[in-house]
């Protein structure tokens, strides 16, 4: 049982490491305005109540990585109710990347679904 739990965790982690960037880009592409980390985490929480895709704290380094790759841009704004917040916005290059990543995701999903349903044509 312990092995299964560990293996599940490992599998989930490996799956998440690739899809986290895609999810974050997609959230920001659909947003009407720039968003800060905590709000993005809340959106993910609402859409992923059963098994959280990733811990909220793991969001921040991914956001930073996307920013340093030029897929996101950010600015800091003061907040009336707390500390200044860093707002993220998707860039033009981020939108283009999202488009191609979505295509890759669809292809991978179709392939994996096919195999899982027993499609083994040679």
């Amino acid at each position, binding site marked *: 049982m312990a092995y299964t739990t560990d293996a599940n965790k490992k599998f989930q982690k490996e799956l998440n490491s690739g899809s986290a960037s895609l999810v974050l880009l997609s959230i920001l592409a659909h947003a009407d305005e720039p968003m800060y980390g905590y709000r993005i985490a809340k959106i993910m929480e609402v859409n992923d109540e059963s098994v959280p895709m990733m*811990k909220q*704290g*793991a969001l*921040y380094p991914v956001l930073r*990585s996307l920013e340093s790759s030029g897929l996101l841009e950010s600015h800091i704004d003061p907040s009336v*109710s707390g500390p*200044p*917040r*860093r707002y993220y916005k998707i860039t033009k290059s981020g939108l283009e990347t999202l488009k191609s990543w979505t295509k890759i995701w669809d292809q991978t999903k179709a392939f994996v679904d096919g195999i899982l349903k027993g499609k083994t044509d040679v």
Partner: protein
Amino acid sequence: MCRDIREYLAKIEKELKGCDPALIQDALSDAEGHLRMALGEALLAKPSISETEAIAPIIEKYGHPEEIASAYRAIESRTSPALSVSRVKETGSSWARFFGVLAEPKAWGAFFYMLLSLVTGIVFGGWAIFAGIISLCTLVFIIGIPIVGLFLLSIRGIAFLEGRIVEALLGIRMPRRSLFLDTNLSWKEMFMAFIKESLTWKSLLYAALQFPLGLIYSFGIFLLFALSLSFIGSPVLELVFHLPLELFGPEAFTPVWLLPFVSIAGFFLLPLTFHLARWVGKVHGKYAKSMLVRA
């Protein structure tokens, strides 16, 4: 299980031990900002629960310290400072290495940093020295305390900005997030936190020293660069445009037989200037990191 945010942050710091201090500062800043926002919301929704009760599920969602530390480590290994990997491979003959510095982005970054330090030195250093003296003088009045507090806050801002310039031009990893400022603290507590933290005073000293350093860097590098170019172009300057280099006194032209040697000296002085810039950039980057990043 962590009972409060401080304990949780201490655990993250422990997990990240040995990593770049700038990365640790960023991770702590991200975590503190997120957790305080979530805690504020939780206490607002259920005022009857204690802070310890409220923080447990928040930390659970945020992630265990070891998970978060490993996420930061993994991303950091893929996100290096702008110029950190751009150094030209040090292979080939010593001549190629000597002149190859001119094609090295890191040397150019250091060169521009030194030129820019004229502006940053005057602005940052000038502000640290003069605004510092003025705010200290106001301490004799009761209004002086908030003025000193604001001044120290501005020094933190300058430290962050300088860190970004250092990372962009010198390729040294510096904090990418400003330090978290707990707005739940009273003005007095915030002021005391600023006073007690050595980073505030080190940042102030750094900003003040940027004034003389900036002048030395910018004038030094500009002088060497201008000398190199004028040496290289000396035959054209003296023989075609009749502009004396004045190497042998005011208005004195260089003997014609000496001009090719002066020109060759210029070709050597230019890469030497860039080697010097790269070395200064490396040393200054280490110094900036020791002064502007929380140890």
